[in-house]
């Protein structure tokens, strides 16, 4: 029982964090989990419909249809497509803003740090332009033009970006997406009251949204950000609550739109700004990474060593980071900015500033980011954070956890940096897979949740099982935050791997779990998978590669999952995505998908049995490839 609250905090794979949270005098999500432990059976199965005033209707043994006649299959499909549409909308919002920022940066001849990313996209989009700013502007224009197309006009970059066998299959299935924003609109319309009732049509629509989400929201957001902010490069970094340095004015950042911080983060290390910090008794400013945008900064940390102190933790660590008392301001621009941080910020006098109204927090100051006013805006933000520092520091008791995390997490892994690490070719990795030194690859992606055993419990448990079976793990999303804080991304974690993978890791000095950073980097995993498949000359579903979002949390994760299924990959989830009340949904996701795209959904909240299933799939695919 928690000493400060009448509840028991939930378990975490991160023991130090679990103890820290259980002793906090502030309430966190980990405290609230117990009070929310009784779940609604109809909600869990997705068979509750609230689309009209005759409802809410629920499917029960005595009421097999909603008042309108909707069956469990229709209700589940509508709820699911709605969620995927919303999730897609979130990622499309991010890529839209990122493309707009790239366009403005290009037009104003701003700094473009990622020359390779620029060249890569220029070649992919067939842009022949020697002036880098004009070229970047054209790239942004092409992305925006696609995003804004109506749903009946197919997006043009899909064919340029997608792997040919996949593109052909998608065309056959009729799931090539029209304009990405319009597709979200269509998804919402289809699922409104007494419209579409055909579950299969709605699941195909989910795949279409998966494609637009994956190629644009994920893959392109990474690459456009790389152009502006620099490409990732591999290095060792500090992670966990230890990265918070109380000598500095600390800004915790949350969200997914790294480019919005680009100007500010450079400004924070200029002499006049450091002088301002020194004048109030601090050594300067530091950004403390949290959620996916923190992972983005960590991924590109090579370029930001002076301002970025490291990634402290994932979404459900954010409340604990603030509870240390050493954070002076929260800058947020997207999810996962939990409402639960608000009372903690109030109590500890932490300034909250939102840069994008889609993630406006109730008690935060709204400062919509405007590119043309970034100089003034940044100065205002800096001044108000200094003011916050002066009002609170010295008066707020600090509660630090300096031994949390580690200093040797391998970060900065991307499709580009990994290939360079391997000597500019995928051949060494393919050879290791062929020889069986690496049995296969598992992309462990998605969020962190407090279900499935507790905070990161299933994610960490599953990863340990997989690496012990010589399966190399690539991670992207909040899952990375948990995996790095428990040391699985440190080179010493090689000792937990099976003998073959261990030998590979030790000879290369790398951990068995490679950190690709934010959830957006699921797009980078797709690039790796595609390049591997291309190098071998096979389609994606043939690769000994599986995906798992063991602790998927939100609608965005469902859109990511739809992308994974469209790619034809086996996808494991710890808990079902509110579809088990529909026999059709279960049939489509677990069986029929194999014939549609080659993908397959596997649901299992047990680390051991899930790892066995995924291992079995990898071994089967190896057999089919005769390796």
């Amino acid at each position, binding site marked *: 029982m928690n000493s400060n609250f009448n509840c028991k905090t939930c378990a975490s794979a991160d023991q130090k964090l679990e103890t820290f949270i259980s002793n906090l005098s502030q309430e966190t999500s980990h405290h609230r989990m117990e009070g929310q432990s*009784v*779940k*609604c*059976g*109809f909600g*869990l*199965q997705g*068979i509750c419909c609230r689309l009209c005033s005759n409802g809410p209707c*629920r*499917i*029960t*043994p*005595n009421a*097999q249809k909603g008042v309108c006649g909707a069956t*469990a299959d229709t209700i589940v499909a509508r709820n699911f497509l709605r969620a995927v549409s919303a999730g897609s909308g979130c990622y499309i919002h991010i890529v839209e803003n990122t493309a707009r920022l790239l366009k403005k940066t290009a037009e104003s001849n701003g700094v473009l740090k990622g020359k390779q990313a620029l060249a890569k996209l220029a070649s992919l989009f067939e842009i022949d332009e020697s002036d880098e700013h004009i070229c970047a502007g054209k790239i942004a224009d092409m992305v925006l033009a696609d995003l804004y197309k109506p749903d009946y006009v197919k997006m043009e970059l899909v064919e340029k970006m997608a792997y040919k066998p996949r593109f052909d299959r998608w065309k056959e299935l009729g799931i090539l997406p029209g304009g990405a924003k319009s597709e979200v609109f269509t998804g919402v319309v289809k699922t409104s009251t007494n419209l579409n009732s055909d579950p299969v049509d709605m699941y195909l629509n989910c795949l279409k949204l998966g494609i637009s989400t994956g190629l644009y929201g994920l893959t392109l957001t990474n690459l456009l950000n790389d152009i502006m902010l620099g490409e990732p490069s591999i290095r060792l970094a500090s992670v966990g609550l230890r990265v918070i340095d109380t000598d500095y004015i600390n800004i915790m950042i949350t969200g997914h739109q790294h480019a919005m911080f680009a100007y500010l983060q450079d400004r924070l290390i200029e002499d006049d700004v450091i002088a301002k910090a020194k004048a109030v008794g601090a050594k300067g400013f530091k950004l403390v990474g949290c959620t996916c945008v923190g992972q983005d900064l960590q991924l590109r940390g090579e370029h930001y060593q002076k301002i970025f102190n490291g990634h402290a933790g994932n979404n459900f660590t954010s409340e604990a980071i603030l509870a240390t008392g050493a954070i002076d301001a929260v800058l947020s621009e997207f999810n996962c900015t939990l409402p639960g941080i608000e009372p903690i910020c109030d109590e500890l006098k932490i300034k909250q500033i939102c840069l994008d109204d889609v993630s406006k927090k109730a008690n935060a100051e709204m400062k919509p980011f405007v590119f043309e006013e970034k100089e003034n805006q940044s100065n205002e933000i800096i001044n108000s954070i200094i003011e916050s520092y002066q009002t609170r520091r010295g008066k707020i008791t600090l509660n630090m956890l300096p031994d949390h995390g580690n200093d040797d997490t391998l970060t900065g892994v991307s499709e580009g940096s990994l290939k360079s690490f391997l000597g500019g070719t995928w051949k060494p990795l393919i050879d290791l897979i062929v020889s069986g030194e690496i049995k296969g690859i598992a992309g462990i992606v998605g969020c962190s949740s407090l279900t499935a055993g507790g905070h990161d419990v299933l994610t960490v448990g599953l990863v340990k099982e997989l690496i012990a079976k010589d399966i190399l793990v690539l991670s992207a999303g909040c899952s990375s935050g948990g995996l790095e804080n428990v040391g699985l991304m440190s080179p010493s974690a090689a000792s937990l791997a099976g003998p073959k993978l261990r030998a590979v890791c030790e000879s290369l000095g790398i951990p068995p779990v490679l950190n690709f950073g934010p959830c957006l980097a699921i797009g980078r995993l797709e690039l790796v998978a595609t390049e591997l498949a291309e190098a071998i000359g096979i389609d994606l579903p043939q690769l000994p590669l599986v995906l798992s979002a063991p602790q998927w949390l939100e609608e965005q994760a469902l859109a990511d999952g739809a992308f994974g299924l469209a790619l034809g990959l086996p996808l494991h989830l710890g*808990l*079902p995505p509110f579809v*088990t*009340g529909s*026999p059709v949904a279960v049939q489509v996701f677990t069986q029929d998908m194999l014939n549609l795209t080659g993908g397959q959904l596997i649901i299992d909240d047990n680390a051991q049995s899930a790892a066995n299933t995924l291992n079995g799939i990898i071994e089967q695919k190896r057999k089919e490839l005769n390796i």
Partner: protein
Amino acid sequence: MKRIIIDREKCDGCLNCNVACISAHEEGSNFYTVNLGSVDSETRNFIKFDAKTGYTPIFCRHCDEPECVLSCMSGAMEKDPVTGHVKYDESKCAACYMCVMNCPFGVLKPDNKTRTKVIKCDFCEEKQDGPSCVKACPKQAIEVKEVSR
């Protein structure tokens, strides 16, 4: 002796007690997998709605003087002297439904599928942590309480 006590003021009619009851009696199922799409899935508790009084949870009271036991001619219904729970033995049941007719609370019913047995609360006696319905109620409208008789 333990009984399920209801507080109907707290009931919102969410039917989670029904889901929990069906799941508890469907082998190997959980809240995600329990079959709610078939009339064969039977709940042993009910929520009655009436515009005047709102929701009323109807649960087996395991009565002190159980009419179902008193009216049972085959010995299928029996009151356990230790736990006080009224137990039903399907193998002894002749499906005469005298218990159904005599239950003052209307909680007993024949099964939908075969009409050869009675659907009756067993207090989830095989479960160590008590009745499933009680654990699934988000409002604590049903509770297990110790009673004197």
